[in-house]
């Protein structure tokens, strides 16, 4: 498996949306009644779910909840390169 441009772009988008979710969690912990923030967070979570599914279908799962969505005969979870592997691809 090679890391191509669209894979990097998709992962980059997942990073951005996921970080936005992380930040919104902190904000909502201290502002639980902010309706605008609640709506924004809901949209982000939906977007994240969609992107994670899209990524799993194309390149393999990033989170365990997606692994059983793909009907594969091999354990795809372990095939994914770890983020610390050089350039995110196999050597």
């Amino acid at each position, binding site marked *: 498996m090679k890391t191509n441009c669209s894979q990097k772009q998709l992962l980059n988008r997942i990073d951005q949306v*996921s970080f936005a979710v992380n930040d919104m969690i902190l904000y909502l912990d201290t502002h639980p009644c902010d309706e605008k923030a609640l709506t924004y967070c809901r949209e982000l979570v939906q977007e994240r779910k969609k992107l994670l599914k899209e990524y799993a279908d194309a390149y393999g799962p990033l*989170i365990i909840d997606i692994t059983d969505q793909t009907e594969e005969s*091999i354990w795809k*979870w*372990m095939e994914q*390169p*770890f983020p610390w592997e050089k350039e995110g691809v*196999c*050597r």
Partner: protein
Amino acid sequence: MWNYEKRLQYPINITQPNAKIAQYIMSQYGGPDGEIGASLRYLSQRFIMPNRTTSALLNDIGTEELSHLEMVSTIVHQLTRDLSMEEIEKSGFGPYYIDHTVGVWPQAAGGVPFNACEFQSKGDPITDLFEDLAAEQKARSTYDNILRVVRDIPEIADPIKFLRAREVVHFQRFGEALRSIQEELDAKNFYAFTPGFDNPCTASCNGNK
């Protein structure tokens, strides 16, 4: 990257506070064979493994250990809430209470604070995996010691039995990972070189490496 799930790996509902048992069980939080050391050990060691099977195993067991330290600290918390001053004083919990009230803090049963010297990350996959096998057995022995004390209190013994069983499973999986690494080395001399240093990572994308 991690995300939190707002649940325990195994349910814990302790109704009767018990300061003495809390002090025993907190050793599996911050003690020499506790879950903090286990998690940090595996999550630190996972980077230099020569195949992805072993990196994945250390990653996933290191992650599971985080849920175990959450379980152990939940047990300690539930055993120390609603304590009377009388019980704190007569149970021997006094010294801990003076420094931490009933907050959860990583120390051994004997009061020794958590210390990274309780585990090693040697940069040698075989060395590290032998340490991991030993660590799982040491933790299993500690849970056995705890079970002898709490065997008649099911609300404490049940989650401890669960944790003990996981040590056994982890031991089995680490043995399989060690075998996978040894099979890829020179069978006549596993120690001819350090696979985590002398050999570049050869994690494979196809198949079970």
